[in-house]
């Protein structure tokens, strides 16, 4: 088996330099903040004295003038996924290992590209040059990786025949062993792969079990681990912006239901079950919230998937207001593979009839006509945040929207800025009395809501609820 290893060191830093070219030649730290202490995930080439895993404080003490960049891990994965896709043009057997490391089965590929040099050139050309990839070629994944490590950027190294000698001076921290095994090996004075090969395999196996055997074999350059090529999975992705930023679990559930309906409505889903739903929420002022829901044995309609999501959302919910929701369905199986339940419910005719009515009404009036109202926070002081209306037809952009949305209104103000007249249907009505007044200030929201409400009675005895929004200093009529 001929394996090529593509190694892109400091992928995060290279990606950040691509995004922020002005940082070229300057020190910079890429900080992962999701951990207990902000830690260095990577650093720019001009940064001195810093290592990956240092705390931000330590790193700053070594490199005080560094620019600080918050890590954008999803983006790094996205860039690496693009690299893997490009590499699939060189070989259809591509394995994405950890971020920045890929393996390709290149058996016979040299002939395809003329010779080994041609293959190496093809590999390097597949990868954007600013990523400075290194290539290693060997008979197994581990030796290929070690060869890549010894290569210069944009160059390739082929593992020599005496692999053990090549590896002897390399530290055992490069072996894919658990940290605990590495620490134990250090305690016995085993620091390099040469130290490991000096002991017998059986002794190592006695002491360290399978890890001992693996260490011995890899230190000799033996690695017959099969390549795990990327699967060509089809994922279904649906997303939407929330009608307003909210932490309401009920609102999230409503949005997920809409997205599930859309996903399951796709023709491709007919006869298929999904085994996994990934939900990602973009939050205000906090890192994204992600959750994977495993569905066993699989959901073949949106209701089944919604039930699973609903039960798990009771224990794990985003703690900051949600701005956008994205849902990804994957791990599909054919529905025929599922065992029918004896007590499966019959299809809901009522729903189907309602959907049919909605379709007809929508065709006739040109917009959605039937909605389901879902209470999400009945105690909320802003009425439009208390409930959502969800269209029976979930395909449109306005499938989910708030209820009782206030509308701007012209108001004449009197003493203490109280309303004295209000314009309704282009007619000014004098305010005869203010029968109630209340106020609230949701100062902590990303867009604070500060309102003073007036229940006014006009000359004709009509009651109207108005409020002055103290953020934009405008008047609104609060629809019921």
């Amino acid at each position, binding site marked *: 088996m001929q394996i090529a290893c593509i190694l892109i060191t400091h992928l995060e830093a290279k990606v950040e330099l691509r995004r922020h070219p002005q940082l070229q030649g300057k020190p910079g730290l890429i900080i992962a903040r999701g951990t*207990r202490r902000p830690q260095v995930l990577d650093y720019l080439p001009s940064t001195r004295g810093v290592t990956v895993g240092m705390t931000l404080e330590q790193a700053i003490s070594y490199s005080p003038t560094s620019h600080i960049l918050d890590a954008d891990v999803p983006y790094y994965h996205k860039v690496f996924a693009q690299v893997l896709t490009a590499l699939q043009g060189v070989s259809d057997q591509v394995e994405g290992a950890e971020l920045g490391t890929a393996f390709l089965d290149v058996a016979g590929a040299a002939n395809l590209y003329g010779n080994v040099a041609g293959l190496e050139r093809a590999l390097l050309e597949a990868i954007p040059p600013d990523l400075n990839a290194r290539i290693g070629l060997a008979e197994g994944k581990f030796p290929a990786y070690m060869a890549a490590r010894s290569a210069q950027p944009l160059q390739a190294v082929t593992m020599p025949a005496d692999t053990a000698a090549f590896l002897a001076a390399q530290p055992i921290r490069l072996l894919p062993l658990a940290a605990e095994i590495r620490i134990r090996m250090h305690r016995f004075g085993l620091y390099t792969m040469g130290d490991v090969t000096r002991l017998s395999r059986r002794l190592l196996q006695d002491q360290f079990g399978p890890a001992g055997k693996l260490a011995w074999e890899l230190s000799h350059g033996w690695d017959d681990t099969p390549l795990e090529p990327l699967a060509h999975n089809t994922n279904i992705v649906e997303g939407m912006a929330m009608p307003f930023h909210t932490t309401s679990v009920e609102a999230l559930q409503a949005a997920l239901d809409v997205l599930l309906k859309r996903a399951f409505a796709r023709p491709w889903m007919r006869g298929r079950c999904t085994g996994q739903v990934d939900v990602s929420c973009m939050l205000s002022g906090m890192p994204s919230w992600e959750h994977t829901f495993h569905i066993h044995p699989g959901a073949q309609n949106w209701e089944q998937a919604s039930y699973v999501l609903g039960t798990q959302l009771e224990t794990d919910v985003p703690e900051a207001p949600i701005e956008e929701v994205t849902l990804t369905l994957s791990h599909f199986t054919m529905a025929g593979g599922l065992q029918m339940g004896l007590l499966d419910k019959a299809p809901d005719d009522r729903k189907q009839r309602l959907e049919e009515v909605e379709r007809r009404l929508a065709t006739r009036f040109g917009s959605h006509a039937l909605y389901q109202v879902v209470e999400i926070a009945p105690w909320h002081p802003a009425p439009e945040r208390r409930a959502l209306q969800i269209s029976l037809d979930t395909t449109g952009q306005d499938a989910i929207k708030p209820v009782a949305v206030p509308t701007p209104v012209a108001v004449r103000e009197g003493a203490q800025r109280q309303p004295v007249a209000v314009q309704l249907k282009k007619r000014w009505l004098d305010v005869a009395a203010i029968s109630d007044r209340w106020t609230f200030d949701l100062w902590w929201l990303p867009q604070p809501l500060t309102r003073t409400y007036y229940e006014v009675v006009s000359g004709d005895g009509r009651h109207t609820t108005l409020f002055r929004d103290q953020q934009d200093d405008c008047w609104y009529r609060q629809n019921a």
Partner: protein
Amino acid sequence: MTAVYVELHAKSFYSFGTGAAHTHELLVQAQQYGYHALALTDTNLCGALEFARQANTMELQPITGGELTLTDDTRLTLLARSRRGYAHLSQLFTRANARDRQEPRLDPVHLPAYAEDMILLTGGRQSRLSLLAQQEQTGAARRLLREYRDWFGPDGVYVELQQNFAQGDTERNRALYQLARLEGVPVVATNDVHYHQAERFRLQNVLAAAKRNTTLDQALRYITPNPHLCLKTPAQMARLFRHCPEAIANTVRIAQQCQFNLDVNLNYMLPAPELAPGDTPIQFLQRLCYKAAQYRYGAITPQVESRLQEEFHLIEHHDLAGFLLLYREIVQIAQTIMEEKGMVHPDTPRAERLPGRGRGSSVALLAGYLIGISHVDPLKWGLTLERFIAEDTNQLPDIDLDFPRGLRDELILRVHEHFGPEFAVLTGAIMTYTAKGIIQDLGKALGLPREELTHLSKQLSSRDGHHLREEMLAMVAFRDRVEAPGWRELVQLAPQLMGAPKLLSQHVGGLILSSSPISEMVPIRAGAIPGRYIMDWNKDSVADANFAKIDLLSLPVLDQLEEALNLVQARCGHRPDLTQIDPDDPAVYDLINGGRSKGVFLLQSPAQLKLGQRLLSRNLLDLAYQVALIRPGVGMQGSAVSQFVERYRHNVEWDYDHPLEKRALERGYGIIVWQEQVVQLLMDVGDMTAAQADEVRRAFSRRNNSHLIAAHKERFMVGALRQGVSQEIALKIFDKINGHYMFPESHSHAFGITAYQAAWLKCYYPLEFFVALINNQPMGFYPMETLKQDARRFGVPFRNPCVNRSEVQCVPEAGGVRLGLKLIKDVGPAASQQIVMERDLHGAYTSPSDLVRRTGLESQALLSLVQAGAFDATHPNRRVALWDAGLTPQPGRKGQVALALQSDRGAPPLSDFTDWEKMAGEYSVMGLYPKGHLMDFMRPRFSKSVLKAPEVEAVPEGETVMVAGWPIARQHPRGRAGTVFVTLEDEAGDIQILLWPQVFERCRQALRSQVILAKGVISRWDGTTTIITSDVRAVATQVQMPGAHDWH
């Protein structure tokens, strides 16, 4: 006409997580608004007495009340009209607490029984009546009102109307007003006050969310998100209720009915001691004393007789016999526990089996010594009776009882049982917010990432939330957060919450005994520890109420002394009687004055070591001064310690600011050393009574006391002027007082004796002293490595643990300390016990694998044993021992027997660990290296110009030197803001370096290193040496040393 209004429904921070104002803030605001009365209706009575006393000081009428949550989660408000009504209120809270100690809920069935002499306000929007009115259940609402009227009487019920500009308030008030008219029940306006000023509403919102451990958004349903729950002016309230003026007028009517003032005598009395029929307490006490004196002294000598007569006269005069006998009862309970637990050496006579020792005034009392509440023979130590109690005082003497650690917890339970939980209750403790708590609570409510909040808390150098913004700006990880959403609000709100009451906890050991049920005076509830009961009041309120607090405290040095004496008895065959040792032994004082008292109770801190060398104590009085001088309250007086030494030891003269200071300050050589001097100073200069002066002293030690201090200062100034003291001098004298802790005089004598006894043991029985010291860690200032170094200097070597020789604890072995297995990381007491038991049963272990087979020890513990050198006797090569340990299969988690798949291939040829590796391993698993010191290994890395600690002594003052070592303690004295003293330990000794604030700020990070290199100039004073440091460098070691502590 000026509107008159009294707020009858107000909460403070004491309604933990609900109110957002200090009691004094409410009162000050009320006073500014022209109120003549104010009610405090917290969800408990924690702040009730404090509020009443503050109100009295400000000449406002305090009304005591409370807001009770019922079992259906609705609320109502109760106000006490009289002492009896207050007792009912307290009992209702106790009933509610009994149902759920953390979220008290009252079953309304209890209301009728306790309704007398109380006024019921039906409650705000969360009341049952409001809910019924809102749901238009008029019939049920009317029935409820009638029920209330039946219970509380026709003039005892008011329908509460609130207009806080929340949606629905107007409609609800309308419905309630109608109901009240229908039933002929009067209405009353309240504002459901949660904070004194509108600006606090954000803090209140955040606290409400934090109480529910959630974010503001998710707690929205429980929050009133507008600023109208503040105290309003009478005019504002009159405007709000202009359509219902009787609701305003009724507030005044109710205030007139609630004339009960909590700051009065609650008729508290101590319980009577157990006596034989016909006996009186003094007779019983006398009999006990004479009998014990016969035993102690062999005969009643004239000296004993005369002293006892003098004491009996004083005890009778102050009616203290019963009080002392109660202490004796407690000591006897402790003695029983001690015997049951086998904590006493069986050969010790029962009369000498003292389970605890008095800390306060009792040490000056021969009767106290004879009945067993003191360990000090006052005749032997020359203690005069004036230290017990002054002739003209009416306060109970201050007596604390210290007990060994293992005894106190059980004792508290037994005392509850003995006197009954209604009659013996622990004092509460009000935990207050510091910067860390603020960050955690507010940060979570503001939706900030938990990990970052934890990180920020750990990085703070100050406990003061007022400086949060500056601190964050100084941190690279947070400087860009200060203006970020959420963080910005945290920074703004933190100062408002600093020092605010956070929760009710329990005092460490303050016990209140009473002859009548305590729940009639203050609510009680079960403590967090099963079997304990605590009250709503903290030590300050307890003192204000004149309750007698008996402190049952834990003092680890007692465990150490007891263990050391047992070891001496085992080795030498006799047990020294510490009460009869020579009190003026020069050898002991040489030890103290030579800076060799590390590990000695109260005399071991670097500051004490230095003071010992300067003060050169030679008797108990010197020692009492010595232990009293290194207290925060003395430290706060600038260079008071140095001035004292100059005056006391070098006869330097000093001047008083006014001759009236003389009586108070003379015994402190012009310095305030003891609490009593503060009282005397206030009396003599400020023309105050003893009680007034003591109140001022206590006011200084309270949190959020600025308003109190201002009031007392004014009174002091008036008194001083009356005494002929000029304003300038009076101010100067008042400024000498601070609220930081200092000893009462009698405490320093009692502690001085205990310290002397510990020093005596170190002097004459160092082996036993160190064994007991290590076995009772943690109990002091230093890491064990430092104590080990000190022991080596006393000729007591430490030996590595050994699986075949060590016991669970450390034991003496051939003149040295054999370390116990328990000390080894991951081994712990249970595994150590198993190792020792198995060895005793089936003989010595031959190898690590043998030990695993026989004990099933976990692999991590086995590894630690090898690294600690516990197998050196069987396997001198630790790597081979490790290999052997790794070959043995571990048993399963639930005792499942391991499959015996033994390898017969043995170990490969492995070289042993280097000495460095052994040292690093031993530090990592034991925190000490018995054979040497880290600096032995580091020394070759430094040039000859880097001196060892003892070599510094030979360098003249003013010379620049460099030293290197392990920083073992960092002290931040209170009186010297920003200055830090660091004790550096090397292989030969230790040296103190001083960092001025700017140097400390620059070198703060380096000081956290395991080894540092410091450069500075030598400074000498009274034979002590300090290096005034100009630069500190971190030196990398890769050795896991125990962390140094910061002492503030």
